[in-house]
C-alpha cells in the first residue's frame, strides 16, 4: 500500500483536521470528529445533513457550506457513520426549521440514518439511488447512491438557502434523484488503508464495468476498451434507463474516482457529451472532476441529470464549499 499516512488508525482524524484547518473560514469541526459543519448558520433555514463512509472525499465534507450542506458526518472508510454523529450534527445545525438527511442508498447508511431520524424530531430523508449499473449490490437493496448525490445536495442546498420548507425540500430532493442516472467503470482497485491491500484484483488490460464507489463489483469484468466504447456503453445504459425523459436540457457530470487525472476525465466528457447530444440530450451544465471518489481507485463515472428551469436556476445559485464554489 502506497499512501501518505502516519498510522491507519489516525488517517481519518488527521485528514479531517487538515481539511477543517484549510477551510476554517467556512467550516467548524464537531467534537470527537463526529461531523463537519458550516461556520455560519442561517436562522429558520432547514438544515441539510449528509454523511457516509469516508474515502469519497470531497463528498460530503467538501460540500458543506453556504448553498449546500449544513453538516456532514464522516464514517470510517466505506462504513456508515453512526446515529450519534447524525444526532450531534443535527443538534449543532438545526436552525429551527427541521433537518433533511441526504443518504446514499447502502444498507448500513440507510439503517443508521433511519435510526437517527427515528430518535429525532422533524427529520425527513432523501435516499439517493442513481447508479444504473446494478439493481442490488453487495451493499444495497436496490440501486446504489453514487455521484448523483452531489447534484441532489447542490440543488436541494440552494433551495434550502432560499428558504424552502422541509417537505418541499424532500420532494425536490426526490425529484432531482429521480432525474439523475449514473454509472462508473474502474481501471484499478482502491486500497482501504486498514486492509493494506487492493480491494479487488484486476488484470493489466481489464476494467470493472459498472463498479461501485467502494470497489464493489459491477455488471461485469471486461477487457479494457477505448474511451468512446466505454462512454458509449455507459451513456446507452443511462439513456435506456431514462427512457422518454432523456430529451432536452441536462447536466453532464464526469466524476473521477481518485486516481484518474483531469486530462482523462475531460476526454471522457468529450466522448459522453457527443453521445448524449446525438440522442437529443442538450448539455447545458457541466461538471468535471474528482468529487465522489473511491480512495485512490482509477476510473470514472458519468452522471446525467435531466434539468428543468427550477433545477437549473438552483444549480446556478451561489455556493461556497471547499469543493464547489461559484457566485460568491
Amino acid at each position, binding site marked *: 500500500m502506497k499512501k501518505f499516512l502516519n498510522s491507519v488508525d489516525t488517517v481519518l482524524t488527521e485528514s479531517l483536521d487538515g481539511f477543517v484547518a484549510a477551510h476554517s473560514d467556512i467550516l467548524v469541526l464537531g467534537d470527537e470528529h463526529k461531523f463537519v459543519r458550516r461556520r455560519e448558520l442561517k436562522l429558520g433555514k432547514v438544515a441539510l445533513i449528509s454523511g457516509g463512509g469516508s474515502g469519497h472525499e470531497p463528498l460530503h465534507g467538501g460540500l458543506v457550506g453556504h448553498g449546500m450542506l449544513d453538516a456532514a458526518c464522516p464514517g470510517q472508510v466505506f462504513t*456508515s457513520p453512526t446515529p450519534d454523529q447524525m444526532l450531534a450534527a443535527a443538534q449543532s445545525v438545526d436552525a429551527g426549521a427541521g433537518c433533511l438527511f441526504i443518504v446514499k442508498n447502502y444498507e*448500513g447508511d440507510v*439503517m*443508521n440514518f*433511519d435510526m437517527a431520524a427515528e430518535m429525532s424530531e422533524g427529520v425527513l430523508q432523501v435516499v439517493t439511488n442513481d447508479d444504473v449499473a*446494478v439493481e442490488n449490490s*453487495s451493499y444495497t*437493496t436496490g440501486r446504489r447512491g453514487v455521484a448523483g448525490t452531489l447534484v441532489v445536495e447542490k440543488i436541494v442546498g440552494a433551495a434550502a438557502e432560499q428558504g424552502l420548507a422541509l417537505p418541499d425540500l424532500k420532494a425536490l430532493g426526490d425529484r432531482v434523484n429521480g432525474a439523475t442516472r449514473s454509472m462508473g467503470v474502474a481501471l484499478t482497485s482502491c486500497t482501504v488503508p486498514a486492509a493494506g491491500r487492493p480491494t479487488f484484483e484486476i488484470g493489466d488490460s481489464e476494467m470493472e464495468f459498472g463498479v461501485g464507489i467502494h470497489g464493489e463489483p459491477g455488471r461485469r469484468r471486461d477487457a479494457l476498451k477505448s474511451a468512446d466504447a466505454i462512454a458509449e456503453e455507459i451513456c446507452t445504459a443511462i439513456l435506456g434507463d431514462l427512457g422518454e425523459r432523456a430529451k432536452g436540457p441536462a447536466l453532464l457530470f464526469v466524476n473521477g474516482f481518485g486516481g484518474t487525472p483531469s486530462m482523462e476525465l475531460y476526454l471522457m466528457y468529450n466522448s459522453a457529451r457527443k453521445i448524449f447530444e446525438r440522442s437529443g440530450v442538450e448539455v447545458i451544465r457541466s461538471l468535471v472532476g474528482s468529487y465522489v471518489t473511491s480512495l485512490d481507485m482509477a476510473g470514472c463515472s458519468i452522471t446525467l441529470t435531466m434539468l428543468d428551469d427550477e433545477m437549473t436556476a438552483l444549480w446556478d445559485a451561489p455556493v461556497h464549499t471547499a469543493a464547489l464554489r461559484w457566485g460568491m
Partner: protein
Amino acid sequence: MTTIDTARLVAMFATIATATSADRDRLCALDGVIGDADHGIAMELGFSAARDAVAALDTGATDPTTLLNTAAKSFLNAVGASSGPLYATAFMRGAAAVKGKTTLDDADVVALFQAMAKGIQDRGKAEPGEKTMIDAWAPAAQAAGEALASGKSLAGSLEAAAQAAKAGAEATKAMVATKGRASRLGERSLGHMDPGAASAVTVIEAIRVTLTD
C-alpha cells in the same frame, strides 16, 4: 422457574462480548467471502461497547429496560456497519418488551428474545431465505416460543432456540442471496455461511449459557 435480574443481564453482555471477540477472525473471514470482511470487527466492537456500558451501570438502581436500552445505544454508536442498527434495534425492542419489570421470568425472557428477532426483521426488512442473520434469528425465536408453549423450561426453550439458530445458519450455506447485500455474487455466494447468521449462533449460544445456569 429462573429469575433473571439486571446483574445477570450484565453478565450476559460480558459473555456475548467474550464469545464474539473469540469468534472475530472466523466472522471476518466469512464476511470476506460474500461481504466486506468486517463483520467480526463490528461484532467485537459492538458487544465490547455494550458490555462496558452496562458494566458501568448501578445494577441495583437499573431495570432491565434501561439496561437493554443502554446496551442498544452503545452498540449502535460503536459500529458503523449494518449490524449496528440491527442489534441496536433488537435490544431496544427487547427493552420495550420487558418494560416495567424489575426481574424477568421465563416468559419474559422468551418475549424479550422474540422481540429482538422481530426488531432485526423490522429494521432490516429481510425475509427468511435471503441469507441474512434473520435466517438464524427468526427460527430461533420461533423455536423458543414453541418450546415454552409446550411446557419447556427457560433452559429448554433457549436450548431449542440455539439449535434452531445453528440449523438456520447452516441452511444459509445453501442459499443464493437473491436480494440485498450478497446478491451480486449470485452463485458465488452458494456454499458459504452468512456471517451475520454465523454470529447470531454465537450470540444466542452466549445468551443461553448465561441465562440458564
